[in-house]
């Protein structure tokens, strides 16, 4: 799989997921991340789409990737989308995408203003490929990415097998699969299993 526009969304868990989350709270957080160089990459600006229904919410615009407190389909979560080409084979790029999303989600959980109010879960992680040319939303793409997705899912879940739930209802949509593990999982543990952390 040549595609590099990979996206991973880590969902917010209740009770924050059930409407208590205000996107504007994340604007100063993302601005601070730029100020404090919280992520080891070029971060450019913060875009506020809080006025749009179930939109990308607040987006931390980077050069190579965007991070968003995303509200698509009414399911809040941290969405990471790689925009520029990345090094390595697909499995490596996939692992890096998962790690980057989990890392950002953990950092958000640790934000002083959000601590205790916001928790992400890694039991179900949404994977997307933002490339309809190389990855149309259908079974052929699923077949192509299944081995790598199952492998990364197993790593995240400490070796346990995961289930892939494709979202194929709308062929016009981006290729989307939910990677579902056997039980609850916090993002710090998941990140650590991918070699991330601190």
């Amino acid at each position: 799989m040549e595609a590099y526009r990979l996206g991973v969304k880590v969902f917010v868990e209740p009770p924050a997921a059930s409407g208590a989350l205000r996107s504007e709270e994340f604007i100063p957080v993302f601005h601070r991340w730029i100020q404090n160089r919280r992520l080891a990459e070029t971060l450019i600006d913060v875009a506020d789409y809080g006025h749009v229904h179930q939109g990308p919410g607040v987006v931390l615009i980077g050069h190579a990737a965007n991070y968003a407190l995303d509200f698509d389909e009414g399911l809040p979560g941290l969405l990471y989308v790689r925009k520029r080409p990345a090094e390595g084979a697909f499995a490596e790029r996939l692992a890096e995408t998962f790690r980057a999303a989990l890392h950002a989600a953990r950092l958000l959980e640790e934000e002083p203003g959000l601590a205790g109010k916001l928790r992400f879960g890694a039991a179900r992680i949404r994977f997307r490929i933002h490339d309809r040319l190389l990855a149309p939303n259908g079974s052929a793409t699923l077949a192509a990415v299944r081995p790598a997705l199952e492998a990364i899912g197993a790593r995240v879940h400490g070796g346990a097998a995961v289930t892939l739930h494709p979202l194929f209802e709308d062929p016009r949509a981006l290729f989307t699969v939910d990677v579902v593990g056997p039980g609850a999982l916090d993002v710090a543990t998941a990140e650590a299993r991918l070699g991330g952390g601190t």
Partner: protein
Amino acid sequence: MQALTWKDKLAGRVSEPLGREIDIFETEIGLRKQGKMEEKLFAETRLRRGVYGQRYDNGQRHDGIASQTLSYPSGELTKGPMTLWDAPGMQRIKIPYGVLTADQMEVLAEVAEEYSDAILHVTTRQDLQLHFVHVEDTPDIMRRLAAVGITTREACGNTVRNVTACPYAGVCGDESFDTTPYAQALTYFLLGHQDAQDFGRKFKIALSGCRQHACALVNMHDLGVIACRRPVPGNSDGREERGFEVYVGGGLGSVPHQAKLLLEFVPEGELLPTAQAVARVFARLGEKKNRQRARLKFLIARLGVEEFKRLVIEERARLPLDRRWTAFLPEGEGDLAGVDRPRKPGAPLGPGARPEGFEAWHKTNVRPQKQPGYAVVTVRLPLGDLTSRQMRGLANLARRFTGDTLTRPLGVAEAGAEAPRGPYGSVRATVEQNIALRWVPEAELPALYQELVALGLGMAGAGTIADITACPGTDTCKLGISSSRGLGAELSHHLAAREHDAAVAGLHIKMSGCFNACGQHHIADIGFLGVSRNVGGRRVPHFQLVVGGQWTENAGSYGLAVGAIPSKRIPEVVDRVTGLYTRERLAGESFQAFIRRIGKAALRTLVEDLLEVPPYEQDPGFYSDWGDPREYTIGDLGVGECAGEVVSPVHFGLAASEREAFEALLHLDQGRPEEAARLAYTAMLTAARTLVRLQYLDVSEEPDEIANEFRTRLVDTRLFADPYAGDKFAQYFLRVHSRSAAGGGGGGEMTAERAHRRIEEAQLFIEAAHACYDRMTQTRGA
């Protein structure tokens, strides 16, 4: 094995000429990356394809604490002067007259999702824009759009920009006739036309079906036409011919000009050659070196409309015949009406239960078509934004409720191509940054409403005071001074939570982040123009309150600023102004008439206490903009004694100049244009002298000395030069001064229109003086 490319995949679906154009652009991208193409040339070639720069693309961004360098993999490689290669940019997509088909909407949704941030932005000129796009992704965006009949060619640059037209054309009961086929013919005819390639500046065209409404804003366009009919000359059988009133030289920008009537009636078959003749005269005689004076409005101001008319008529007579002038017209005396036709049977809205919220939505978002049984539904987009998912959802609704199943586009407008006749897509972007769904059977409105609600697009209030228009401002625009979108979001929220009587609910609020006026604040009932002020050594975002503009009658008049208000006070200002209008208007009195009656002085008094900015220590919230927690100040300005000593007299002087400009406004309102113009000039003198005194305390009050010192110390040294507008604002002052020194007001009688323009220039000169002072203090503080 080579990976599949969009070029391969779309082979045969993109026309050969357009595909070649995109290939050339892709090659140019490669050449520029290798340093084999000069950056200015590359900049122009990308701009002509709608590939714009965006804020911070010079690689510097103030993060609220300090200015930081943005580090990119391509390093110092640029895609234009001071525009780094890797910096994200904006892709403008021309949507001629705002017409979209369902399949086009789907592709737009796709490219937003893959190359941008899944947001599509509708502009005030019926374009769509994607933000945060990498230049290397743009050829594939163009190919995918081209495959569904959309081109980005000439979306920017010194070209004929998107041709706009009333989104209700063909379905509005007040129009003379449907202007869509004519808009389409103009689009095809002028795209890439050799006579439209040598302009000194952009050229905007609008078509309206009537005089009275605002839908096409003819008066603010370089070339605007209004559909009309007249009896066929020489016939007494009552037959009429179609044609257009032609207006030229309108424009907003820093100093707005109302368009002038060029020709009272141009028969339909003469529309294209007339436009061609106007383009030729503009290309031949328009300013080329000084882009600040290069729009058509300046040429017409210089020549006078009668001389311009003579030149156009002369040019028209010389044009070689082109069959495209009339190829789009029906044979004989046939009519183009009905080219856009329903695809589903119409049916009236019957009795029965309605979904919750339907009545309020129906009142503001639905208008009947002239075709019985059909309605146009306006989908209100907050700040002109919608997500890719919503765009796909709207495409579904267009198919289901309007029967829009056009799978083959109308063909891509290509240089030399003939415009096909309809049918057209049933969806249109509007100049109020909304989307209109046409040909909806009225009986299906409740079901459509429920579907829109499910998409998060069921908001009532289209075209009301809460439906705010805003340009991108500091969010993404390089030129933005204040956050127009931040304020727009706040005001929209603020106003939606309040009850308004019908007169207030019908007002329009528009805001621009800078003097370029992309948010069209001049023509709003209540407009806001982003500026900044230095308070105690820190910058504070402000907006000038602009009133007196007229949205209807195709942007019938332009408003003027009455004072700069701290951004965080704007919601309160709106409450006070609308409250006063509610309490004190006369029966049936329009907002414009109300403002004229009470006078701008009363309005100023109403908001006077809101002009003050509390000290930073007391309320730091004033020192950041809406939706952006960063401190607004650029650079860490000291608040020490030295700065304090400098600040005080400068503030005093600039405040005095603002007062004088405001008094000029009052004179204008009271029918004294001579006095208004004189005071506007005095205001400029005061501001200029204030700045000169920073370097030369003993400058006299003699106008010649002030002007000479100003030129030597601030213009020649480039201290006054605006980073983007250059010497434009300085020239406003120096030009007026030279006319005054020569003993005249610039030749001819001082009309209200000229005085109006003089006041605009004075206000902008004073704003530039504020900005200049800010730059000077930063330099000192650094």
